[in-house]
């Protein structure tokens, strides 16, 4: 099957009177990495939550690999199994060790056997340098390790698309790199990713395309080189200027 991995068409979403997403159109090709940038409250997180059906859209369509997931009577659980999401605050299950955190989804949602789920988890833990943490509980891990486990937990479902929601925002600065490296590795393996981020340097490095969100719609999009060096939209210019002034680009 060809065509984009992810399509958003005229997606609208409001919380009460607050219009968070206003007619968002976005396509993500297979193996593409798209970064969403923009000020806090511009709708980046909400957009990701809508794609994962954590938040229902008010109108518009979202299509994942040819299946419209916003159609009525769609099995949300099946949709979510195909889309991995990683949160800003990790959201690991504190009462389970690392291995069980990772195998819970595959075992309960995919109905894998325990040995199969564990084999899959160990493979991923190994790959991301977390093999020695498999029996640890989340509160014994650093923030960076917790976030890497959260990424592995999402990967264990073998998703077609990964959504990353500000995954480094809750981390101490010295822990950011280890998480970004994991994401770089995923990108190099061709994982389709939609990433909301404040890390402009990272977005410039990794993204095939950058979308600047402003007041709920995509004000400007393009290759990172273009967005970061010669933004066209005055709002993009102002946003990036503020970032530069803050010494973050």
């Amino acid at each position: 099957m060809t065509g984009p991995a992810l399509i958003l068409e005229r997606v609208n979403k409001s919380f009460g009177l607050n219009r968070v997403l206003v007619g968002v159109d976005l396509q993500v090709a297979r193996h593409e990495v798209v970064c969403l940038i923009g000020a806090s409250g511009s709708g980046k997180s909400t957009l990701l939550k809508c794609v994962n059906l954590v938040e229902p859209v008010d109108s518009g369509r979202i299509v994942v690999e040819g299946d419209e997931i916003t159609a009525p009577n769609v099995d949300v659980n099946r949709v979510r199994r195909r889309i991995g999401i990683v949160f800003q605050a990790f959201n690991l299950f504190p009462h389970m060790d690392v291995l069980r955190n990772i195998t819970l989804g595959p075992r309960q949602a995919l109905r894998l056997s325990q040995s199969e789920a564990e084999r899959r988890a160990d493979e991923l833990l190994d790959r991301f340098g977390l093999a020695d943490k498999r029996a640890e509980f989340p509160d014994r891990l650093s923030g960076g390790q917790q976030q890497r486990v959260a990424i592995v937990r999402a990967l264990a479902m073998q998703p077609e698309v990964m959504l990353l929601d500000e995954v480094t925002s809750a981390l101490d600065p010295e822990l950011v790199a280890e998480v970004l490296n994991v994401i770089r590795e995923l990108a190099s393996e061709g994982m389709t990713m939609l990433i909301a981020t404040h890390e402009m340097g990272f977005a410039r490095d990794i993204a095939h395309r950058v979308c600047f969100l402003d007041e709920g719609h995509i004000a400007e999009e393009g290759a990172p080189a273009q967005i970061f060096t010669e933004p066209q939209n005055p709002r993009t210019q102002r946003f990036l200027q503020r970032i530069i002034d803050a010494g973050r680009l």
Partner: protein
Amino acid sequence: MLGGRGVLVSTASTIVFFGALVLLVALSPGVQLVGERFFSLDDMVRSLQGTETSPSVLGAFWLNVRIFLVAEVVILVFALLIAVVRSIPGPVFFPFRLVAVGYVDFFRGVPLILLIYMIGFGVPGLGLQLFSNQSPVVYGTVALILVYSAYVAEVYRAGIDSVHESQVAAARSLGLTRWQALRFVVLPQAVRRVVPPLLNDFIGLQKDTALISVLGPIEAARSAFIYSAENFNYAPYIVASLLFVLVTIPLARFTDRLIARDRARRAATGGVR
């Protein structure tokens, strides 16, 4: 924690406080009589062992323990069911939630002793084949279960509500159903958090088993009453009270330890969970 001076002060204040208390009792005009009626060692021992005409308080207390153990197990399961029903979202389940809310409201409000009377005398009066020929112990235990389940359901619910919704979001994002998220992610964390208040309710349950005595079964309070009525001596009440205290104290200390452990754990993780 306490310095040398602190120890001195606390010792002195303890002596003064309890000294005053003892003095107050010792100087009261009826101290002689109360001492004989309530604290006669001979009557204590005799009531504890039992006589030809009155049953042993200790033996009767065994019935309280059995009632407690049975009721506790049933309450743990039944209350969890009520709390879960009350937590199911969705308009379809509105009537179920309504029943759960109504249950808790009613049984938390009705005085236990009145419910024991209502069930103990009402259900036999119904003349139903299976339900109406049970022993008073069964009726009393059912009343205990009904009332305490309402309390414990609220404790569970507080625990369920205390699990942050981001935990549910994380579980659902993995494709788990609402039930799976509840079962594997929410409930295990909720139950762990409410163990101390849960044990607290069970301390209450343990001593409230004595209320069943109003239906006539010979448990500790009733057997103490029998001895007391025959010998005009209240020492068995002291004996029965001490028995209850003796079994609740270990439970209370255990609860304290769990709370302390929980606090230490939370401190160690800096409260970030």
